[in-house]
């Protein structure tokens, strides 16, 4: 199993390196300047895929949390631990790139608009997930509490997604059903390429963090064995 995961990791890592270079090339040389926002719009190619990978990570976190509460198997907890950290990383990228775009577009770095606020809540929930796991008295208690916070974090994702529609915030709706907007094909190509690249980077990070958690568990078990002698 581990050997298989290691091979998959090396393969995805090997693919991710040229793909990210390709994505950067497309963002800065292939995609044209947007007519209204100009250069600032290019951050969209990092911001939106990062938001998508946050959703994907929280989806994995939900799976790991439910799996752990159902089976009490710590391997599920390792998966949710890995997903939490990856989700926090991508959510941080979203919260950094968003204000960089907002300043030239809206004139302010931050506003307490529905999507921004709910994304910040998700970031805080992910941080809480890591904190309860690390500060709990036992591994099992930490895993249980983190699983519950993880499920609460997952509930926030559809709220973030629908926030613009429900509360009519300032945030632009990227995928509006039935919208009659002809996106330049080069912009669309760049956007799709960036999503695929970020998906591969997400897989690389998740596998790496999962492997680290697995090795930590084995080391703890070996220490416990030594302590009981």
């Amino acid at each position: 199993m581990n050997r298989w995961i290691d091979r998959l990791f090396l393969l995805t890592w090997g693919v991710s390196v040229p793909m990210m270079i390709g994505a950067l090339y497309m963002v800065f040389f292939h995609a044209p300047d947007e007519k209204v926002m100009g250069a600032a719009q290019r951050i969209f190619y990092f911001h939106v895929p990062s938001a998508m990978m946050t959703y994907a990570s929280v989806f994995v976190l939900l799976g790991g949390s439910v799996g752990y509460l159902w089976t009490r198997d710590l391997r599920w907890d390792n998966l949710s631990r890995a997903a939490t950290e990856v989700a926090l990383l991508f959510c941080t990228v979203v919260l950094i790139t968003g204000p960089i775009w907002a300043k030239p577009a809206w004139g302010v770095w931050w506003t307490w608009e529905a999507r921004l606020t709910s994304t910040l809540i998700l970031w805080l929930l992910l941080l809480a997930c890591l904190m309860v796991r690390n500060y709990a008295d036992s591994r099992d208690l930490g895993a249980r509490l983190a699983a519950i916070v993880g499920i609460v974090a997952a509930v926030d994702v559809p709220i973030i997604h629908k926030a613009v529609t429900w509360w009519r915030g300032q945030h632009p709706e990227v995928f509006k059903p039935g919208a009659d907007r002809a996106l330049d094909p080069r912009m669309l190509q760049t956007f799709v390429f960036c999503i695929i690249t970020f998906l591969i980077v997400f897989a690389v990070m998740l596998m790496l963090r999962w492997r680290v958690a697995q090795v930590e568990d084995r080391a703890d078990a070996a220490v416990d064995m030594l302590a009981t002698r």
Partner: protein
Amino acid sequence: MKSYAFLFWAYNVIWICIAGWILLTFLRVRRLDRRLDGVERELSRSGRS
């Protein structure tokens, strides 16, 4: 259109650093995993004797 060559190369440098760090971390974890194999073997052998 503006030239984004500087940004392209700057992000490339950052990305190569991150990718290198990821690979190094993975190789260290794999080495640690193999050393743990040895520790577990040793522990089970000394437990039997």
